[in-house]
């Protein structure tokens, strides 16, 4: 091959494909560079306050991002905490008990739930779930165990609690599909061995399938978390967009902010205020770094699982 002179079309296809790849890699690095360079005014002026400050007052020059950062972390972790047991149940049912026809129904439901645009989750959460949740769940809870600060009233409906619930519905299909795939990779001979010993399906699951799938499930959970961290529209529409939580009120029934809702609701108007613009960009950069580290970690875990399996 070495001595052969490649035809013009050969090199055209090869270098065309190479140029496209380089430009995509270039755009990705340019994205980082742009966000970073636009964050510099905020980094120098706000310093650590952007990460630890509690007050956001563009006109007064205060740009504290802590409530938004905590809102992002809390809503994502809360929804992951709910979605993970749900996903595990679904995966166990799917691989151990479900008849073939129900299996295909479950995977269709998962696919469709994952395909629904987030703005539709948003309008549904805003106009249908929020009033129901307020009168039937939040207010009764606040009335009975409201003496516990995190459950105290007044209940707003649009709250970090609602945002977490909507996120749970959005990430459960992602985590479930992945863990079903990982569960079904359990070597057959291990399962058969357990059955031959007289184990029940649950025992096989607990002693063989789950230990075997553990790392993959963690990766699936991390990917779900990554999705929740970056979700914007559904969260912005149902979280109430306010800095009340968690310092004025620790109640999960209070409106709150996440990094994404903060950026979505303030970014375009911030152009006239250079520091506000830069501060929001830095918040986005923080989110980008968290998201990318999470995705990279999950990828590494999944690769090891696939390599080892």
């Amino acid at each position, binding site marked *: 091959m070495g001595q052969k002179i490649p*035809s013009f079309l*050969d090199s*055209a*296809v*090869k270098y065309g*494909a190479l*140029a*496209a*790849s380089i430009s*995509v890699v270039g*755009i*990705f*690095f*340019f*994205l980082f560079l*742009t*966000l970073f360079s*636009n964050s510099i005014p905020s980094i120098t002026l706000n310093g650590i306050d952007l990460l630890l400050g509690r007050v956001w007052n563009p006109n007064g020059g205060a740009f504290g991002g802590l409530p938004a950062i905590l809102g992002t972390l809390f809503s994502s972790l809360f929804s992951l905490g709910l979605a993970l047991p*749900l996903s595990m*149940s*679904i995966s*166990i*049912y799917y691989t151990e*008990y*479900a008849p073939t026809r129900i299996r295909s129904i479950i995977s269709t*439901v*998962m696919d*469709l*739930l994952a*395909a*629904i*645009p*987030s*703005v*539709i989750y*948003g309008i549904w959460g*805003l*106009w*249908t779930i929020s009033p129901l949740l307020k009168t039937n769940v939040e207010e009764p809870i606040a009335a009975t165990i409201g003496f516990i600060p995190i459950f105290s009233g007044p209940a707003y409906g649009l709250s970090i609690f609602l945002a977490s619930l909507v996120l749970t*519905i959005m990430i459960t299909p992602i985590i479930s599909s992945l863990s079903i795939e990982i569960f079904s990779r359990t070597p057959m001979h291990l399962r058969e061995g357990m059955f031959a010993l007289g184990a*029940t*399906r649950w*025992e096989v699951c607990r002693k063989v399938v789950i230990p075997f799938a553990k790392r993959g499930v963690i990766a699936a959970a991390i990917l779900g978390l*990554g999705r929740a961290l*970056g*979700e*914007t*529209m559904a969260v912005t529409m149902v979280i109430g967009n306010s800095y009340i939580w968690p310092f004025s009120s620790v109640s999960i029934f209070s409106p709150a902010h996440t990094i*994404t809702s903060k*950026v*979505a609701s303030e*970014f*375009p108007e911030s152009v006239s205020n250079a520091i506000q613009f830069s501060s929001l*960009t830095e918040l*986005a950069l923080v989110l980008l770094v968290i*998201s*990318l580290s*999470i*995705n*990279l970690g999950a990828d590494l875990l999944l690769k090891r699982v696939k390599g080892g399996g």
Partner: protein
Amino acid sequence: MDSRKAKELLVRAVTTFVSLSVAIPLLWIVADVVIKGLPAINFEFFTSLPAPFGETGGGVANAVLGTLVINAMSSLIGIPLGVLTGIYQSEYSGEKRIYSLIRTSIDSLAGVPSIILGLFAFTIIVMRVGHYTALAAAFALALIMIPPVSKATEEGMRSVPIEIREAAIALGLPKWVITLKVVFSIAKGSVITGSLLSFARISGETAPLLFTSLFSYYWPAGINEPMASLQVLIYNYAMSGFGEWVTKAWGASLLLLLIVLMINTLVRAVSKNKGGY
């Protein structure tokens, strides 16, 4: 009954219950969107421009057209770039380090929250041009399309059996013919599936549009102008709290949901029946 059997039954009951109950949100959302969206749907809804705030009537025709125009532009940028990077990764990147640099970048691009892509497009395009523009939206959405299209192309081409490549080489075909006319044309199904799914995905993307194409109450005036879209219309109208607009938002949601779920069901039905490569 001993405790092992009881445990087995309990696990079975709980997991069955949970698995079947995940259908509830899906059915609820679909039913809700249909019930609340249908009253908004009439002839005028599809043919007219939005009515001014406070007035009844009007439609969402410009938003439907805007979503289609923005999607078409994004596909024009995103699909070729995705296909080319996929071809490169499958056929040409011999060097392991270059391969993993490209792979990692594209995978990471897929993990960037879409609102950040919107912020990026706003910073490098909208701020430079000086006004909101649908071109910036197309750029941001194209970045969402590239990773899945690239992955579908690479996986499709990699799964072409080695015998077919060998047969093509034995025929003395030049590399570009083998790449494009043999391997790529076998993998075409996978590429089309990936492209359609990413098209469905961007049809629902809203966050990047808030910073790029924004919204307009008029017909699209050009690709370098602000442009209405169904997604932003749903967001603006739903958040307005004004009854007439909220109903319109539900109608637009019904339309959007139909488009997205139809593409998804279609693609899944086709790719399931075909099997093979």
